[in-house]
């Protein structure tokens, strides 16, 4: 019985560690955004519709469909869960203050979209190849 419990603890512990190791999000931007970094507050403003610029450059948020990377980004950088985050955007849409940001289906599509669109800013997991975009350090 003890062995079974020990095995379960080891398995769940390993899964937890693996999940944490995997869940590392980086913020990526089209090179048209001049800044090399962005404050957490400015990032939150852009991704909640409160601002459309970073360091004087136009910034257009791009969203990733719901999943682990998106959840981590929203939790760590925006401070909202997926439902609350999207409800906030819909609120802007229904009051005529904004259009809903583009949502892409995969991290590869995110890199592709951000590469091709001036001002685009998004997020991916660290492990995803991201040639053609710049990684913004979040202060």
């Amino acid at each position: 019985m003890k062995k079974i419990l020990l095995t379960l603890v080891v398995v769940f512990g390993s899964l937890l560690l693996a999940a944490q190791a995997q869940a590392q999000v980086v913020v990526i931007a089209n090179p048209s955004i001049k800044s090399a970094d962005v404050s957490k507050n400015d990032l939150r403003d852009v991704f909640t519709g409160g601002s459309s610029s970073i360091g004087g450059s136009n910034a257009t948020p791009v969203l990733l469909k719901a999943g682990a990377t998106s959840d981590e980004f929203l939790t760590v950088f925006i401070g909202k869960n997926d439902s609350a985050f999207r409800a906030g955007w819909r609120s802007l849409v229904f009051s005529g203050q904004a259009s809903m940001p583009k949502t892409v289906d995969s991290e590869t599509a995110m890199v592709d979209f951000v590469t091709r669109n001036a001002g685009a800013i998004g997020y991916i997991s660290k492990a995803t190849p991201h040639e053609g975009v710049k990684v913004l350090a979040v202060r």
Partner: protein
Amino acid sequence: MKSMFRRGLAAGILAALTVSMGLYAQDFKIGTRTVQVHGFGTQGFIHTNDNNWLTMNTSGVGSGAFTDVGLNMGMQVTDNVRVAGQFYDRKLGKLGDWEPLMDWAMADYRPKPWLGFRAGKVKTVLGLFTDSQDMDFNNTFALMPQSVYPIDLRDSTIAHEGGDIYGKAKLPNKLGSLSYAAYGGRRADNMHSGYPYLLGGYGITLSSYGGPVFGGDLRWQTPLRGLKVGASRLNQIITGKGAFAGGPYEEHSKHDWTNQYYGQYTANKFHIESEYKRYLRDQIIFNGTAEIETDVRGCYVSGGYRINKWVEAGSYFSHYRVYPGGYTATTYPEATTHDYDKVVTGKFTINQYFTVKAEGHFMDGNGSALYPDGFYTAVNPTLAANTIGLVVRTGFSF
């Protein structure tokens, strides 16, 4: 026939919403531009222990005549230009009557973050929630504090036909940011709204109600993250026309203004807000033969805490008082000049599309004197002083 048409149209909008949701067909192209389609709808049920509330027969088993739907389309034309609009339809007891409305429709040009222009039928910025009060999915409460956001009078401040100048600018020295909006235009009320319904109880049938409006809003996002404070002002010159006792009827504003002051603090799972609103209307009524002043003062304190991703608990205290100018307290019993509403709410977020709310209202007073406040004599031959209400409201949006 007209009612059938309206119901058919409402059913059509509902069907369009459902299909859009089911197929996730949320956008289409016009040329190279993408048109986004979004929608929302709610269905509510209200039961009260006494007094019929919001023109529904709530005091029996309750009423489910509490439905609204909206269908929204928007297109980003260029980086700085956007066009958008929204249809809205509702049934709230005797109000709304399934008459579909162009809720708002506008073009927006914003060359700079600190300078933008909106024109068309534009949502009016007044206090924290006037322009977002319909977004049930985003509000903690099934019914917003009725002292400041009376759902039966939604039409009166929701939008104006005209233009806005607006913008947002960061302040130096990390002092936060300022947002402003200044507007002017015209308001035209729907004849299925609360005020025409109230006058109907006195034998007056309005055929039009509206006029020029102008105002502004200034809000400060303070250096303390999540804290904002602001003030709004609305001036109106309103004329109502219709019929009374077989002849024409007219009333018009002598003075008609609203001041609203507000503050809100949000932090991760928690929010608290408070507003104070004073609405003063001095009207020349009955074709110029009489003058009546109504001084409505409302305020509330509300808050909510998200316990987990599915459940949020909230509460508010809403304080409403009407001061009928030129009348004595004996003319209007105390209970008819106030409504103090204590509310507790549970909001359940099923997923990003669906919410369910259950809410208890404990009301002291019915505020039924002179100006609408949810309780109408037309559906309440006698009005009790106090009311306890249960509100359940489900909503979806996409």
